[in-house]
């Protein structure tokens, strides 16, 4: 009954709003001439109208209540899981923090009392005290960890004191940590707070360890 498949395809493309203007005018011209196609096109349009008029049904009474009654009550576990899923960065940060505290406390006790000193030959070590002897000039930076520094001579560089105090000849007698006469230091003097430095130091180490893999 129909002319040819090509025009029928054009009709459908037209109905889907998926036709170029040239194709459309081609179809229009054809429909003017061909009665069969006209009929076909009319039937298609009518079919769509009919489909749209199909019976509408409504959900049974109480449908919403039924659904709400059947919803699973949220368990605490599910709530946590949802929270975790929504805050991945917080969770990662928490895990990182726990691991860090763990590694920190395990290393904290290991080397606390060990005295570490930079390697200048001029430095004299007396128990927990590092001494720059009088009349001696120490070249380069001095680093002292877990010990006190007594400067009688001169340090030609920066001094970093970690977990220790700077003593001078007077204060050694007094037993205090006065820094008043640190005049023998020709660079910057830095005394670092123990806990903060310790954490910072281990954060750096932790990352080094991570990236070593």
């Amino acid at each position, binding site marked *: 009954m129909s002319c040819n498949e090509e025009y029928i395809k054009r009709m459908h493309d037209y109905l889907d709003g998926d036709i170029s203007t040239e194709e459309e005018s081609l179809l229009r011209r054809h429909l003017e001439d061909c009665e069969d196609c006209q009929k076909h096109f009319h039937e298609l349009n009518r079919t769509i109208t009919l489909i749209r008029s199909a*019976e509408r049904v409504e*959900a049974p009474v109480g449908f919403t209540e039924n659904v709400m009654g*059947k919803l699973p009550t949220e368990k605490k576990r599910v709530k946590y899981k949802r929270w975790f899923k929504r805050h991945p960065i917080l969770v990662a940060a928490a895990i990182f923090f726990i691991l860090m505290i763990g590694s920190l406390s395990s290393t904290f006790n290991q080397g606390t009392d060990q005295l570490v000193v930079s390697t200048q030959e001029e430095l004299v070590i007396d128990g927990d005290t590092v001494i720059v002897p009088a009349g001696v000039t120490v070249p380069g930076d001095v680093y002292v960890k877990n010990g006190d520094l007594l400067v009688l001579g001169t340090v030609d560089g920066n001094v970093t004191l970690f977990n220790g105090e700077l003593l001078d000849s007077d204060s050694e007698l007094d037993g205090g940590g006065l820094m008043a006469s640190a005049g023998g230091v020709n660079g910057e003097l830095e005394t670092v707070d123990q806990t903060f430095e310790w954490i910072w130091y281990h954060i750096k180490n932790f990352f080094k360890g991570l990236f070593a893999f």
Partner: protein
Amino acid sequence: MDQFIKKKIIQVKKGDQSAFSDVVSFYQNKIYQHCYRMLGNKHEAEDIAQEAFIRAYVNIDSFDENRKFSTWLYRIATNLTIDRMRKRKPDYHLDAEVKGTDGLDMYTQLASTERLPGEEVESRELQRYIHHEISQLPAKYRSIIMLRYLEEFSLKEISEILDVPLGTVKTRIHRGREALRKRLRHV
């Protein structure tokens, strides 16, 4: 209305279960009707439509708020109806139809031999008849025809809902329209 639903969905995501009841009552007729047309059986339609809403609730976190909620919901519902149809025993379908469609079958047997009188599209019988003719289409055409002309989705949305390529949607809607044209020609 989209804004309203969007707001409700965000509340549900935050754990406010009661906000979901507004979502259900807004979509209940559409989803129920969709299931009913797919399954041709009121009892099953209610069952599956409920299941669709429950699944939507349980999986609400996987819904992306920037997308259209109705598309997502229809997709869940359509997949469930397809599963249900697959699980059916071959003979179950016939029984179900008589039970579910309130004597529609007797009526349509009449209709297939006799011409329908009148052109009043408004008439309830004609509406039922059309519904029946749609329900006789193969499921893959039926779903698309329904989504296009009864739920007014675009072809692109339909391709998302059914998870088939746009080209396939076009082919199927052409065939579906042709099949219905033949069935409804004498109306």
